[in-house]
């Protein structure tokens, strides 16, 4: 089976991209490879992902810097948070 990575976008990132969830196949091997893959297809989204306060989680754990992605990994990109 081809390895895949599931990418989730939240808040304004979803509006920038025009999608909420997408499967990347074949799977990028790292978070930085995923960012590069996104940059080739959507420069505006890639820029939004680099903007201040945007954080990434891999398998529901906040990523510090780059991270290795296993097959089937879930990657979430999250803009600055605001509840209440």
């Amino acid at each position, binding site marked *: 089976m081809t390895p895949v990575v599931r990418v*989730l976008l*939240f*808040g*304004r990132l979803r*509006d920038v991209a025009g999608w909420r969830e997408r499967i990347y196949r074949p799977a990028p091997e790292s978070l930085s490879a995923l960012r590069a893959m996104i940059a080739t297809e959507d420069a505006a989204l890639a820029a939004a992902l680099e903007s201040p*306060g945007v954080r990434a*989680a891999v398998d*529901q754990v906040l990523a510090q810097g780059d991270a290795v992605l296993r097959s089937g990994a879930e990657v*979430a990109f*999250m*803009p*600055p*948070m*605001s*509840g*209440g």
Partner: protein
Amino acid sequence: MIRLVSESFDPGAELNRFSRGRTVTGAVVSFLGLARGESGQAVALELEAYPGFTESEIAAFVDAAIDRFGLQDAAVIHRVGPIPPGEPIVLVLTAAPHRREAFEGCDCLMDYLKSRAPLWKKEHGADGSRWVEPTARDLSDIERWA
């Protein structure tokens, strides 16, 4: 106890349930946030969460607040999805032996929810929609607890 709910809830019933049977608690503090409608401004709010991640992140912060302030218990109930003006968005409850700890714990938890919890808020107004990000005030509020 952390709950994300997509329907309106009864804050009084939640406060009663939280307070019941507490024989060694001297103080329960509650904060209720309402969806605020301003004329010509936001007509509805929409809250987005990351199911699973949002609850576990909030739960970890609540556990840390319980330790830090010496709380006996704390609860957060937060709406997700569309919220009409006047409806509850968030209820934070804290229980402690004495009031000061309960007030401070509740205040700290609200500051966290406004600027650090994985929740995203969109305002739908007469002139379109916009994502709300923490204000300078929100960011300085959470710094009070650093």
